[in-house]
């Protein structure tokens, strides 16, 4: 299920929250788990088994690990849990890519007998959110092993932690240790609820009013043949804005829904486009992923404790894997590599790095340019497409005409305004949490506009839409 749909806003959410508040505390974890499975399995119920598998595996491995007598057996249970979760992720996310690669290589030497492929390619439809909930699940056995968290009190509350619908399919990645206390006890105050409403309203508006609007600009560059200078820039700036508002909007909605149920989730975005270096960008962009990678990947690899060279290599490896986490393709890996190399270069040159020596506004502009370049790779499905966009951006001359492009003047105006919002406006975490009637009316208007947009998105006039 998706937040910005009629069924979520008008059926699922009132039912889920209504019953949640009527139940006594000890029943709430069960209700949350149940409704989250409905949320997850709405379109593909069979994939709920994956969620259950990740839950059971990590819960029981954690249990055995706590009861293990020797360090070796603790390590064994940790390995089983982590390998099992990664195996799940690996199979569902990467098997298709690897069989495809193997087939490509094999075809260099062997002519396919059936005219199509040598090695059968696994066609697996990616279970939505699998990257998020497996990472979330992995944090539990590792935290237990390191002594950073206590054992989960019971299976139901652990299951509710893994499946919690607000952040299940697109983050933030919440670690077990962060909400272990809240799973046992949390308050449900009107203030939390009011704050949650505000986060949800702002998040929904970011998603349906801003991100979905900027999405219209993207195909101008990414779906045509060779885009012109103007179209390439409009398309990539549109994507830069779309991905931020979409993702940050989703995180805001998740935080808001969490607050309505008494949970306090971590901040996931902190105005990333205000960064003056790539290092700073990664402290502000998808914070729960970058800190996850730091604590569960970078530090176990040795972090910066094994000398300068190892630090750079570790940074690059972590970002490369981070790229792969976003999607099973070589362009995502290259995107990760780009960021890894930039991070390593900043670490290497430290104060001598050009970004550090520029005045801050210039450094922000340059950082954004580097980030925008990485979004070309992130959005392009292949190198040919990325190459065309880059050619349009840098190797063609402005014509000061949009030609036959399908773009409205309003959207053209919205792009600089959107950029200005990203660069200068406070984000949802910086807006004062004070409650006044005027602020309440502002948030009511935002929610009204966003809900209207959801309702007004044309869908079918009747029962059928799969023509």
């Amino acid at each position, binding site marked *: 299920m998706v937040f910005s749909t009629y069924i979520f806003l*008008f059926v699922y959410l*009132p039912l889920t929250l209504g019953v949640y508040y009527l139940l006594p505390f000890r029943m709430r974890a069960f209700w949350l788990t149940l409704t989250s499975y409905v949320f997850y399995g709405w379109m593909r119920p069979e994939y709920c088994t994956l969620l259950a598998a990740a839950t059971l595996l990590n819960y029981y491995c954690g249990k055995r690990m706590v009861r293990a007598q020797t360090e070796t057996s603790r390590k064994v249970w940790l390995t089983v849990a982590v390998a099992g979760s990664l195996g799940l992720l690996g199979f569902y996310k990467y098997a298709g890519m690897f069989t495809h690669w193997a087939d490509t290589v094999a075809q260099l030497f062997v002519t396919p007998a059936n005219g199509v492929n040598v090695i059968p390619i696994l066609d697996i439809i990616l279970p939505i959110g699998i990257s998020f909930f497996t990472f979330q699940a992995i944090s539990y056995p590792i935290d237990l092993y390191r002594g*950073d968290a206590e054992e989960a009190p019971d299976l139901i509350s652990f299951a509710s932690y893994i499946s919690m619908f607000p952040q299940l399919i697109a983050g933030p990645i919440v670690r077990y240790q962060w909400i272990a206390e809240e799973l046992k006890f949390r308050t449900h105050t009107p203030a939390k*609820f009011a704050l949650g409403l505000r986060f949800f309203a702002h998040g929904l508006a970011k998603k349906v009013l801003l991100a979905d609007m900027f999405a219209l600009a993207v195909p101008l560059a990414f*779906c045509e043949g060779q885009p012109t200078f103007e179209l390439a820039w409009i398309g990539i700036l549109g994507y830069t804005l779309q991905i931020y508002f979409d993702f940050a909007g989703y995180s805001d909605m998740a935080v808001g829904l969490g607050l309505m149920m008494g949970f306090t989730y971590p901040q996931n975005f902190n105005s990333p486009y205000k960064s003056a270096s790539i290092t700073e960008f990664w402290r502000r962009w998808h914070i729960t992923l970058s800190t996850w990678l730091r604590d569960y990947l970078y530090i176990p690899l040795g972090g910066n404790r094994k000398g300068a060279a190892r630090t750079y290599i570790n940074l690059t490896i972590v970002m490369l894997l981070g790229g792969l986490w976003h999607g099973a393709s070589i362009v995502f890996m290259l995107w990760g590599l780009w960021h890894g190399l930039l991070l390593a270069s900043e670490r290497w040159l430290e104060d001598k790095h050009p970004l550090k020596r520029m005045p801050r506004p210039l450094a922000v502009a340059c950082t954004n340019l580097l980030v925008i370049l990485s979004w070309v790779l992130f959005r392009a499905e292949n190198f040919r497409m990325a190459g065309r966009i880059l050619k349009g951006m840098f190797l063609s001359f402005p014509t000061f005409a949009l030609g036959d492009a399908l773009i409205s003047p309003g959207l053209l105006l919205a792009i600089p305004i959107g950029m200005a919002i990203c660069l200068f406006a406070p984000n949802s975490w910086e807006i004062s949490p004070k409650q006044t*009637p005027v602020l309440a009316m502002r948030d009511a208007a935002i929610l009204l506009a966003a809900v209207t947009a959801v309702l007004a998105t044309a869908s079918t006039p009747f029962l059928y839409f799969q023509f």
Partner: protein
Amino acid sequence: MKKETPRSIPERLHKERIRLPHFVEEAESAGPAMVWLTIIVILLPYIVFLTMEIGARIIDPPILPLRPPWAPELRSPYPPLTRYAWTGDLKRIARLPYYDKLIEQSPFLPRYTLRITDEWGFVNKPTGQPPRPIDEQHDIILTGASYMAEGSTIEHTFASQLTKELGKSVYNASWPSGGPVTGMIHLLTNPQFFTGKADLIILGIIQRYLYGYNFNEAFEHIAEDGSILPSTIPQHPNRQSLRDYPDWRNTLETYLESTSSIRAWALKAGQFLPPMAFDRGINTDIRISWLKDIPHAPILFYPADIASTFHSYESREGDKILEALIRIHQRCQTLGTKLLIVIVPDKYEVYRDHLNPPLLPQRNPLLHERPTHPRRRAPQVLVERLQEQGIDAIDLFPTLYDAQFHPGETKLLYWVDDTHWSDAGIAVAAKTVGNQIQTLYLQ
């Protein structure tokens, strides 16, 4: 350089995360009255909406359009005896005021399709009588998916055009939302609907549906010798039930949206909101391109459809398709009915030489499809194989491809904002198919 140790993580993380509870404390300092006021003010419009939605459904329960009481309990592609407007894909997937303006200026007027359904729920003029088996009144039956079913009005459907060409009435038994043979199977397995006495059945299939897996229905319902497998004659009732529709969750969502009491109001208000792309977590990658020699024609394509035109007969499991069609043909022979198979090309195949800039197929990242460059189009191979088996088949690609160069042809053969063929395309195709029927069967 500062050293990091795993042990120091939790405290630091706790500091990183600490802001939200702090935030909550600050919010709580407002005092309970203000907090409650805030909640009420923010939620007020939403609660009004929710009450209206629930209330309207209690006062006037708009249950799915019910069948008329006399109608047998058969599945149907649409609810019977309805008429409503329908728009092209692009209008349906995006709220694009400027695009609408462009389309209005375009001479290739796309449309609101006015769809009318008969007593059986198929796209035909209603007869005004309780439904009787369709072959009592019609000698020629047309079936297939949406291509065969729809036209901008009831006069412009393929069946109506063919009626005009042949001077004989053609019944439109096409099943728009189904697979390539859904309508055909419905025809062959429901004796109340079709007793098997027609002279000719025309089965139209669009190029992009020519994949083996799309023909599983034929194997589920028809045995090798052409007999109907008994267990599969559908017996489930349809009335007031969502379960009958295979994808009930999708259906429920669409049903709720379409019967929403506030949606009409929201659509009006939506004009003042920014335009938006359609996004429900579904990948709806679209491409709008321009036709080189034809002004004012921004034209919509789907990358998956483009890719399909590059797939060879073998890679689509062509022999499985052939086997399915042989079974259907055998069934028709048993009934004493002739069968004509018509393969319709996709928009991209007809217009690819006009595209500026040219579009090339992409790999579908989900399916790992790899477009190959078949030496011959898969439909062409299929038609040849069918003819070898003694089954009549026509590939409409040459007809439609040539038609765009006709000196008098000023209309586009496909809708610019949709993947389906336009009235002009239907008329050209109906002429060819009509001629073929004249020579094959009527002379």
